[in-house]
């Protein structure tokens, strides 16, 4: 499943729940309670507050473990031993990618840097969705690992504003089927 679709769905559901909570409270806001009912609702609210805190805390721990137990970024200070290595240099306003063809289904290490200002090295799949990215920064080399799962022509697009030629700063990357596929 495409990650962007998951995020979009999660946000839509979350925003809908938040909106429902507001609608419920707004509808109730014009129905004044007498003193007894008022005290009871304050007590109920405190209990709900405790439960909400507990639920969010559990979500925090579960979510953090699920998204971080396998850290999504590769180590930067030791060799990565990837089967393929691609050197990437960004400069106003072009990309130098060597080699510009990689094989499908084997890990590629992108070594990304910049000759001048900050750029964003983003790889778009043939369907127009971003599959991964890192920053291209002068004086630093960011190492990015990615395994392509579909052959095709991918687009490398600058995603960090870098001046007048930022939007057209793009090139292509060919992903070919591995031998035997």
């Amino acid at each position, binding site marked *: 499943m495409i*990650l*962007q*679709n998951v*995020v*979009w769905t999660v*946000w839509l559901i*979350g925003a809908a729940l*938040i909106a429902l909570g*507001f609608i419920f*409270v*707004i509808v*109730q*806001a*014009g129905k*004044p*309670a007498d003193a007894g009912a*008022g005290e009871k*609702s304050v007590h109920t*609210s*405190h209990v*709900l*507050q405790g439960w*909400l*805190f507990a639920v*969010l*805390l559990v979500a*925090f721990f579960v*979510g*953090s473990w699920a*998204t*971080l137990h396998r850290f*999504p*970024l*590769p*180590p930067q200070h030791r060799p990565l031993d990837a089967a393929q290595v691609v050197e990437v240099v960004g400069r*106003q306003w072009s990309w130098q990618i060597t080699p510009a063809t990689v094989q499908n289904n084997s890990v590629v290490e992108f070594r990304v840097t910049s000759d*001048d*200002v*900050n750029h*964003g090295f*983003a790889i778009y799949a043939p369907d*127009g969705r971003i599959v*991964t*990215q*890192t*920053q291209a*920064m002068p*004086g*630093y080399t*960011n*190492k*990015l690992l990615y395994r392509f799962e579909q052959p095709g022509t991918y687009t490398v697009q600058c*995603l*960090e*504003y*870098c*001046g*007048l030629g*930022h*939007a057209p700063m793009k090139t292509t990357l060919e992903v070919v089927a591995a031998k035997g596929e």
Partner: protein
Amino acid sequence: MASLTMYPDNERLAGGERAVFNLYLISAVALFVLMMLLGLTMRMTQATWLGLPPDMFYKFLSMHGAGMVGTAVMATTAVMWFFLRKYVRLHLWAFVTNYVLFLLGALCIIYAVFVGGYAGLWTFLYPLPTHSAGLWTPNAAALFMVGYLLIGVGELIFYLDAAAGIIKVYGNLGRALGLPWLFGGKLDPDHPKTVVASTSMIIANSLGILAGAVVLVMSLINIFYPQVALDALFTKTLIYWFGHMYINAAIYMGVIAIYELLPRYTHKPYPLSRVFLWGWAATTLFVIIVFPHHLLMDYAEPHWFLIMGQIVSWTSGLPVVVVTAMGAFTNLYRANMRWTMPSRLLVLSLFGWIAGGFGAVLDSTIQINLVMHNTQWVPGHFHFYLLLGVLAMALAVMYHVIGSHVNQPPNTGLDRVGFPVYLVGGLIFVVSFLDAGHLSVPRRMAEHLPAWTGTDKLASVGAILVVLAMLYFALRISVGLLRRPASGGAAASRGGVGAADAAG
């Protein structure tokens, strides 16, 4: 505890205070409209309905970003000043100095962009200011940065004056934050939430402004002495530390409006609690250390630092939801609410803050950031909580103040039309941004592919509605502020409930 009196006497403005406060608010609404027009022009260009050339687009983008953030902080500074002066002594000269330095800074920025051609965005990421490829001169970049410095110094003077006033009354900033009551002791129910929130932002944003001053001076030195090279990662880290705290301050100074005004419109007490103090103690820390979520794609940063960015971003949502939202919900539930413009805007602001914040929390997850960073998801979530959150908070206070001039909460027929236009337009606008992020449309681009223009067009329609509503709000608020306050207000204000009822 905040007063339930609708228009208490100690909030009434007179003479110089009123003049300066009006200057803040009228300047703010005028700037908001102008900056929105820039934003609308950019969205319509992306939608191919207008043909702004790329060089002008990026100038507009630089002006829009710096202008909106600066104006949001200016407006919410006025909110903080308006309420905090009831509890501690604030010197008018500090408030005036902040305004004058803001205007001078704004003029520098406007000149740098529209005369000097500066188009390096609000982020002025090193070394872009000196690599313009002929689009702007180094002097224009320097003037832009001097403008920032002036605005930052003005805000810092205001904070220092506020800190001095708070320390005079409460002894030290820790006591003002309520730290001695975190683990026990008898809570003072009259300890003002405004003082807690103000103290929190004085601490956090003063640090942010100092970080900004350091990186601005470093960048200025580099402009005039290019042989003094900077570290691109270090400067970027400082810029986002400063930038994040600065815009966070707008939210957390603005939320004072909810604490002060909501109970007056619900006619229900909104008492201080230990949970509230825990929430703000945590918020103070979180605002200071949450910024690494801007740097998740800078793999060269230490990985513990990036993990901290994700974890603190997630946890910083807890005080917002558990403390402020639940507190406000409790206050609203079964209340004697009569809906008028201030109360509508207050509730909208809470919704905008939470729903927009949820989008921000998702994007601060490293795995998600890998595919969402620098897409339109980012302006989607921050426009959500700035447009429908912070601006709504500031507008609620402005509407409340113009209501105080006639001792009746504003609620004309045009107000009742303007509000849904703003709400619907705002929702269309921000959800279009988020949808574009979901479709991998990049942010900050003058030219869009044909496949991306669908969300641009929808966002433009939403933005037109927002601009129309905001234009009306700006005129209504400006005229209302300039109207002479009704005499005998004190007697009428004591019957705040009656005043609200009459409006309903």
